[in-house]
């Protein structure tokens, strides 16, 4: 225990708003200046290494507890995506879905598209509850709230991971075989994930004040899904208005490129993908900035 510590400004690992003068001394000030986005991001990355137990326990709590009161238990992690994929296969088998212009087998095309959409929605759905879900905890004890963001991202990735495995099983069952492009496939999913996380984190801050934005965003994303080539290909769109929206939609490219790398047969719109990735990264960083700047002032409004 340090009893008389010489002042040190901006001690590592301590938010600027909570100025530290040594390892053991923390100061909370009114209207303290929050961490900048890169300082906050760096702090969050450091937290993974400094408090792995916290990240692990919080993630485990969310992943395990939701399946505790079920007979299926953790099997639901597999069952949920399996049932979701089955529904598409069923729709296809009864002839509800028509063939698209895509060169890939249509079932594979839909399976891949919906799985990637799952990644976006999982990131959004988890991150949008970052503060609201932890409302009791954040009012009970002081701990680094960046852990909540990391935890929600881990939970979203884990959920998606199980979906991806099931999807691959289905894809193999339908005759898909490994390709060289698969080496690029996973990294190209990162912007899609960050986009969902960024939108979710921004909504999370608004959720602490009022849930209107979440409701609107949920409705909006329902529409966005149909403006994203998931159950149809870009070439299928005949309406010029819809075509405009599809081309304008960043998710179009963030879904199309990894799917084309996975399945082949589609053109790779790298330009659109690059711009969309920039939009996704900017969205994520802006949301992080808003979180670091505004989160502490919203705690008393989380009801």
């Amino acid at each position, binding site marked *: 225990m340090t*009893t008389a510590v010489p*002042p040190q400004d901006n001690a590592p690992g301590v938010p600027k708003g909570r100025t530290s003068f040594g390892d*053991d*001394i923390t100061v909370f000030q009114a*209207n303290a200046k929050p961490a900048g986005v890169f300082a906050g991001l760096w702090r969050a990355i450091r937290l993974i290494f400094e408090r792995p137990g916290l990240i692990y326990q919080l993630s485990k709590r969310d992943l395990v507890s939701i399946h505790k009161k079920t007979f299926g238990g953790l099997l639901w992690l597999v069952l949920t995506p399996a049932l979701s994929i089955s529904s598409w296969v069923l729709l296809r088998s009864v002839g509800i879905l028509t063939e698209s212009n895509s060169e890939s087998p249509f079932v594979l095309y839909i399976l891949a598209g919906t799985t990637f959409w799952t990644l976006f929605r999982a990131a959004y759905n988890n991150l949008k509850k970052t503060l609201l879900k932890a409302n009791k905890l954040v009012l009970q004890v*002081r701990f680094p709230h960046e852990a909540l963001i990391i935890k929600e991202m881990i939970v979203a990735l884990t959920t998606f991971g199980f979906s991806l495995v099931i999807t691959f099983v289905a894809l193999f069952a339908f005759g898909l075989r490994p390709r060289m492009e698969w080496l690029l496939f996973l990294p190209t999913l990162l912007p899609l994930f960050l986009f969902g996380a960024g939108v979710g984190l921004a909504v999370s801050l608004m959720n602490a004040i009022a849930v209107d934005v979440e409701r609107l965003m949920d409705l909006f994303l329902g529409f966005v899904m149909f403006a994203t080539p998931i159950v149809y290909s870009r070439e299928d769109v005949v309406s010029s208005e819809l075509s405009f929206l599809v081309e304008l939609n960043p998710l179009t490219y963030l879904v199309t490129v990894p799917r084309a790398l996975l399945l082949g047969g589609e053109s790779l719109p790298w330009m659109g993908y690059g711009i969309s990735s920039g939009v996704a990264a900017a969205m994520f960083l802006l949301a992080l900035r808003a979180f670091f700047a505004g989160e502490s002032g919203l*705690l008393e409004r989380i009801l």
Partner: protein
Amino acid sequence: MSAAEPEPVDPEAPSGDATTPESAERLRGAHGRNANAALPESVRDVSEMTDEQLAAFGEAGDMMGHLSLDADLTVTSGVVDINGSLAGSVLVTGGKLIISGSLIGSVTNDGGELDITGSVVGQIVGEHTVNGKAPVVEEEAPEPDVGQIGRGGPSLAQKASVQLKSKATRSDRGSDPIIGKKVRLKPEPDTVLVAGGVSKHFSRDLQTSMKYGLRTLAKSVVGLHDPPDRELKEDEFWAVKDVSIQLQRGNSVGIMGINGSGKTTLLRLLAGVYPPDQGGIMINGTAHGIIGIGAGMHPHLTGTENVFLNGAILGLETEETAELYDEIVEFAELDYAMDAPLAMYSSGMRVRLGFSVLAALRPDVMMIDEAFAVGDLAFREKCFGVIADMRKTSAVLVVSQIPHLLQIVCDHGAWLDGGEIVMSGPIGDVSEPFLREMARRSPAWR
């Protein structure tokens, strides 16, 4: 059985009956909340108890449950051994009193012998021995500065307050209006917590709270803040106003106040849960608090899983929690329930688990928010013991609206009303006027 109609002790009952569940229940009834009401007036003097009563009192131990006396118990002759636990105060005027169990309350020796081999959570007045030997005199804990320190004596809190204000003045001259990052606090040895002029405001109305929240968020995102001396807006009120506290190791402070007086908000501010709207707080070391029960614990997870979860939230890594696990479970006395989900626990059991994790951490500042209210008497007694022990190395801050509870664990008190500290000083000096004021305000307190 009601306290008004207590079941009398059967003086003819053989003392051996105390070992049967039926007799234990009978004894609990006799020595329940209002034990003296169950006994003849003359039996308030222990030396006049019948053998059976003494046997029940002195020997039944766990079977006795826990005695809680409204009036003083007097030992005038003979040898009396409290080997169970007793809540109340005891006066020894003759004979010998041995406390081999535990006493929650004060004990005064005025002419007899007093030997303490167990624990006493309260004042010990007069000559006494510990395990038959003269007690080691401990250095008196330094007086805490509580309350209007920012406006009063030359304390670190005042220095912090002055420095913070000087920063604000500098900003007023046109530089940064936000209180600067480089506050030069110079922690003194053993000072573990300093709060200088801390204030927090809330909105009364949900709609205005949402409106102000939106503005706050928008301002924060673009790097703007309200000036530190801003006036309250419409529908806002000060939940905590200009509170300054300085705590050193060994201090134990009880903050009392009615519902809505700002106790929990103050605790959240001091624990770093809320950022203050005015003033500053310095924590030298670790500060943890029981604000509510079991931070982050999940009802569907088992006791064991929740211990690791709670430990992680409070700053422990998995291996550290594993090392403390046996100690935590032993203290909580919940080894039989650790594999059961928390949802199956009673509220008291949850408190025990939550407090046990916290007790194992031994933070430099321990803050407790009326969490004891749901623990049973036996566990409360253990908690008091831990707090008494913790006061040797840490500072303890307890908030409650029950001054009697605070008097057991705290030396000093502060009365919070409307978010402001209206009185501070030795716990007894604060409790009495607080109770008088409560009695004046509400017949229920009389």
